């Protein structure tokens, strides 16, 4: 796999997470269990307004498990 860099300018939702005009995102924010390498997990459904996005994301979110500690 070959990698290079591109750059741009746009509004940002979070660091390195551009958001487009008219784009609706759904954020789920949760505290990770103590002992985890991170404190906060953000799960972003990037195109919540696209047909089928929320339905497709639901089983993935339902399957989340946390194993810290």
């Amino acid at each position, binding site marked *: *796999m*070959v*990698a*290079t*860099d*591109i*750059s*741009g*300018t*746009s*509004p*940002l*939702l*979070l*660091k*390195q*997470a551009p*958001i*487009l*005009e*008219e*784009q*609706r*995102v*759904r*954020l*789920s*924010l*949760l*505290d*990770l*269990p103590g002992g*985890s*390498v*991170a*404190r*906060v*997990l*953000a*799960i*972003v*459904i*990037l*195109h*919540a307004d*696209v047909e*089928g*996005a929320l339905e*497709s*994301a639901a*089983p*993935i*979110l*339902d*399957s*989340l*498990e*946390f*194993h*810290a500690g």
Partner: protein
Amino acid sequence: MWPSGWMRFEVRLFAKNGETVVEQLFSLERGGAGRLRLVYDFQPTGPAGPVPATTENGKAVPVEYGFLDGEVTYRAAYPFEPSLDAWDRGPNRTAIVGLRFHKRILRLLLFLADPRPIGPGCEEAPAPADAEALARSIRTDPDLEATAPVAVTIGGAPALQIDVMLAPGASSCAWSRPISLARAPSS
């Protein structure tokens, strides 16, 4: 198969008197030393494009993936899978692609660990101490329009859910990203 080439096998497993049928695709090919080997096709391709590697009663079987060195696991079924784009693969970031939209393949989900909000001058703010602080930061960002947080449960853990759009006249910030030349999704 001689002296090169490969063959594909579709393997069917029956259980519960045929109530459950599992189908998997394998390839028989020659390894570097010329010996035959049976290989499970993780990402097989059919005549019309990619097809699921394993199905149960015709439906794609979810595959387990990990994030944060396995501290967070999730299961995704074809066509959804972690992106192979360099932009999406980092210790604090992973994306799941496969959302079809007008002949494009979009990112469906993005997982971010300790995400950093962006300040009014495009500077990175410190990582918020907890989810509530991050929600507050997003809601007070003048470039964003965010709904009030709603308490939900994800993976058995309490979470805050917010819908976000850009505010009119939102300011822009510079960003850069690595891009791989293989399988980069559209957005």
